[in-house]
């Protein structure tokens, strides 16, 4: 048995098993360091601005007016941004991470508030030491905030679907042929002109489509077949 799980297994309502890759300590620390830099800079920027405002004659800025906005920026950064962006802070976005529920679904506002509230404990005694120890000690590499809110941090799925992927179930175009067409089209410009025309013609005849003489027309026919799934 592995010391830590690397994947979160999720079963969809259609009984298709999915897996999500759990984010490790390194990726999370990377995301956190970006977030920390942004909020520290934001708070520092306000303090600089407030210092300037204080120096303006006739303007009074009490201790609360001076420090409270900086505190709000620093402490409110994670809860507010994660609430607004469903668990994706700017640091997580850059690091390619998202927050999900233990069952792979999207976390609700309550879970997001809780995982941020318990940062108070995770950050004890200094520099998120408790949170780090817990991440090393738990199978799913979770800090206390994740445990109590029933959430996990996983790598975001960023691959975009292509038109050809959605026609697999259609009867006209066999999946293996669709894949071949896609690969040929991807490498079209790299192939020797004679070779690509020959390959394209072969593929078109395999799916019972007319084979034009012109290479450009062959490419167009292949693209149409892939886009529509027609054979």
């Amino acid at each position, binding site marked *: 048995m592995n010391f830590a799980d690397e994947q979160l297994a999720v079963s*969809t309502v259609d009984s298709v098993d999915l897996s999500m890759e759990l984010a490790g300590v390194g990726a999370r620390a990377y995301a956190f360091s970006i977030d920390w830099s942004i909020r520290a800079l934001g708070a520092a920027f306000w303090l600089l601005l407030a210092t300037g405002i204080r120096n303006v004659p006739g303007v009074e800025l009490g201790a609360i007016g001076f420090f409270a906005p900086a505190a709000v920026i620093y402490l409110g950064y994670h809860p507010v941004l994660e609430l607004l962006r469903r668990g994706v802070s700017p640091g997580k976005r850059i690091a390619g991470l998202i927050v999900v529920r233990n069952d792979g679904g999207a976390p609700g506002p309550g879970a997001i508030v809780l995982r941020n509230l318990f940062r*108070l404990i995770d950050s004890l005694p200094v520099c998120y030491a408790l949170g780090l120890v817990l991440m090393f000690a738990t199978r799913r590499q979770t800090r206390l905030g994740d445990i109590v809110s029933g959430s996990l941090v996983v790598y975001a799925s960023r691959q975009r679907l292509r038109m050809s992927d959605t026609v697999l179930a259609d009867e006209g175009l066999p999946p293996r042929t669709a*894949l071949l067409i896609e690969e040929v089209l991807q490498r079209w410009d790299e192939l020797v002109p004679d070779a690509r025309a020959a390959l394209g013609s072969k593929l078109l005849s395999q799916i019972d489509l007319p084979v034009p003489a012109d290479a450009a027309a062959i490419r167009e026919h292949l693209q149409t077949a892939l886009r529509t799934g027609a054979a």
Partner: protein
Amino acid sequence: MPKQLDLATATACIDDYRRTAHDLAIARRELPGTEVTARLESQLRQLHMRVDDDFEPWRERLSRLYRDEVPAVYFKLRPTLMVMSLIFFGMAIVGWSLVSHFPELAALFASEQLIDGVQRGQLWTDGILNVTPSSVMSFGIIANNVTVALSAFVLGTLYGIGTLYILVLNGAMIGGVLAFTHQHGLGLRLFRFMLAHGVVELSVILIAAAAGVSLGAALARPGLRTRAEALREAVADAACLLAVVVPFLGLAGLIEGFISPVDQYGFLIRLLVGLASGALLWGVLTGRVWRRPSV
């Protein structure tokens, strides 16, 4: 923030979800380990997060929270709340006794500035509005009280010890400071100051402490569940309660900023404000405010 999808979008989303799942099943069989399969898996993961969303319209969610969940959790936590109240008031008596017998121990609970002021016959609350406007004062008080309440709650994960520390310290401090001011003839004035906002403020701190200790209890005695499961359930219960009571600290802060320091408000008004705000809080907790008509 989660958004409610219109029917057409939701239907289209579910349709996409089913078709992608279908395509993925075929791709896995026919084209295992290819980019097509990887892309379909990625698409299905994104659609799964969109479809499997526990979104609930906020009105229904709030209604369920106030009518059902909060009273249920309150009655479940009531024995713990009573124990927390006993500890708090017990420590207040201890603090009172200590300072009454050994006045020099007031330095444990109060700053040097506060002690000097009281010895000169002045409360730190006297003329406070000349220094700080009510709005600013309220903001500071609310921020401080919310921090104390939430700290008392989350520190419960240290097997309840952190919560008990906050409770014991605050109980002893209130008792000690009251005894010290009483020794200098200012006890009644301090009590008068605390009367309007104190009921809600103390109630919320005690409830937060009970919620915090319930986390410690779940960790110490998880029963047949794992500790993580027990903690998660305890946090979910306690969080419902805190989501409703912590906003009352806003009310207490406003009273403390706008009513408590104003001398024109007499004892009776302060008593009425204290009782009314307390009744509202306890009415919400017990579900009496939202009670459904009997069928």
